[in-house]
């Protein structure tokens, strides 16, 4: 009869268009815990907690502080955090606004302490580094160590390598 343009929301459902920037969601399967989103986030809605005793790194997203800018989505290397279409974020408990992704920290294979980076970060690095350029065995030895162990073994390995080179040369010269 008469054209009416208002809708009896919330008694009727309202959906946002697909381009709408809603609350972010972190896919726990894809997150590697690098913290790039934490650096880019303007209101510091994403924080990280590192527990070196238990070997857990937490990426904490507080939707209450989020301004839905989408910078996290832009800088995420693994495509884990994405902005959804959801705009109804009201809740009676503040805890419902917090999303936590827990990741395992890498345990050093030499000294047994936990490092600050996660296992998944290492796996992703291995995936994206081109195989042809690097020595895979050398990488494999180094990559599962913590920073201190890396520094220490770097020296002893280099000495080892020098010694092996001299020995090889010696054998060759005797042979000739």
């Amino acid at each position, binding site marked *: 009869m008469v054209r009416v343009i208002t809708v009896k929301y919330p008694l009727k459902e309202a959906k*946002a*268009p697909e*381009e709408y920037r809603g609350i972010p969601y972190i896919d726990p399967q894809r997150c590697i815990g690098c913290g790039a989103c934490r650096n*880019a986030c*303007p*209101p510091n809605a994403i924080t990280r907690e590192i527990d070196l005793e238990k070997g857990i790194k937490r990426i904490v997203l507080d939707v209450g502080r989020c*301004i*839905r800018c989408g*910078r996290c989505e*832009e800088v995420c290397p693994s495509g884990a955090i994405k902005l959804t279409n959801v705009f109804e974020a009201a809740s009676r408990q503040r805890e419902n606004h917090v999303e936590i992704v827990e990741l395992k920290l890498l345990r050093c294979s030499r000294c047994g302490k936990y490092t600050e980076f996660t296992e998944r970060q290492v796996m992703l690095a291995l995936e994206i580094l081109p195989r042809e350029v690097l020595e895979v065995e050398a990488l494999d030895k180094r990559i599962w160590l913590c920073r201190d162990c890396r520094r220490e073994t770097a020296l002893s390995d280099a000495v080892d390598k020098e010694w092996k080179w001299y020995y090889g040369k010696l054998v060759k010269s005797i042979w000739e």
Partner: protein
Amino acid sequence: MVSLETEHENDYIKRIKEQFKDKIIGIRKLYDDQWLIITEKDYLRDVVRYLADINSSTEIHIATMVGSDERPIRGKMSVTFWMNVIESGSSSFVGIRAYLDEDDLEYESIAQDLPGADWYEREIHEMLGITPRNHPNLKRLILPDDWPEGAYPLRKDFNYSESPAKFPGYSFTYKDSSCAIVPLGPYHISLDEPAHFRLYVKGEEIIGCDYKGFYSHRGIEKLAESRLTYEQVNFIAERICGICGYTHSTAYCQAMERIAGIEVPERAEYIRTLLLEIERIHSHLLWLGIASHLVGLESGFMDAWRIRERIMWLAERLTGNRKTYGMNLIGGVRRDLLDYRKDLVMKTIEKVKEEYTQFVEKLKSNRSFIRRCEDIGVLPYDKARAYGVLGPTGRGSGRKIDTRKDHPYASYKDVDFNIPLYKDGDVLSRALVRIEEVLESIWIIEQLIDSMPGGDIIAEYTEIPQFSEGLGYTEAPRGENVHYVMTGEKNVVYRFRVRAPTYANLQAVPKMLSGYTIADAPLIIASIDPCYSCTERVTIIDVKSGKRRTLSEDEFNMLSIKASRRRS
């Protein structure tokens, strides 16, 4: 220091140099249209006054005034008056700066000559501790009533998260015991945001008015200087205002791009211009709705906002959000306009134009509305020029100014549009200016969509020089919007100064109010399209300004307690 001579030196700068000779310590050309004159602090007032009066037929006003604590860099504080000198084809910003030693923070006030400098000097006094001598009204402007003396927030030795102890006291200057007082604010239905206009009335006629504002001061400038990186300041700049946020973000980006010498790709500039014009349309439609609502014409309000909804949906489809577009990064924009969106823009604009022209016809032929707007809140041309009133408020009083034509930025030099100009200076002229600007914006959008170029949407940049300064400026829906940025070290801004157009316009409101009735007061205040958030860029601090006229603090508390008991 020796002054810098170049071939393209400004005519006015030459005249200033001749007039003041050795009192000028140095002249620097920052960029093509931004000059800096450094003088001794004792001659600051003379130079500014000379430039403001240099030519009565040119539009010159104070663009912004920046006080900066540069003690970590060079051991002094600086005061810079940036004047916008508007001449067709060669407008420029001329900054007049004086350095002040830490133990001698005084200079002769300029508000004695230029009423438009009033608020700037009050702000610099309470935020940095620099005293303008002989200021006509040196009262607190921004900080809350219970902020103690001696704590200057914008000094570098003041941490952004400090909260000094409480200390009450505020007094209004205008006192007339024969008048009744009508407090319009801080909470009033006709004001969208808290502000206090204290009207002194006799019967229904307003005799005088005193303004106290800055209830929504959020400390954005201090935040930008402490804990945000360059890219992150974009987002807080966008949230300075809920209606014209994108112009703030663009102005900041343009300041940074000027400083770093980044050239923004053409396609990015077109996209920025498109979004700026969309914002202008939505802001003016919002104003038309509010103005109708304030005079009681509800149908005008509903019609205007119904048309505005189309623009909001368009913005949502283009950028992902109705208002906080989040499209700017330094060097360009983040998202591209794909081809299907071009069609969407054209279709929406067509529908909006059709509905809008019908709506405007209906509004202009509504005699009761016109009768409420005509000859109300008149601001004559000379007062408008003295206060430096900007935007549609200025154009309604006969000032021929528009940043898009005077200092072309983004892609405004590529499009053709007119600037509506009216001479009467009343509320109706301002309304007509805004009504016509919407049609001009629609025309600009049509041109942009027709001729949008291809290419990149963002330029890469590697390094931004430290401790360099620059101005970024846009024409917000309310007038000229100027951002001053000085870069610092470690990716953090050193000084960020936002001067929104309402800052200059609000100073003229008490003059506009006297002589009219209380029924007109909300409409007059709304006619400058005040955006208090833009002006104040503030934190939400709880203010209890001491004793009220009718209720004492105890009675007020008792009532609140009673009310909350009743509700439960």
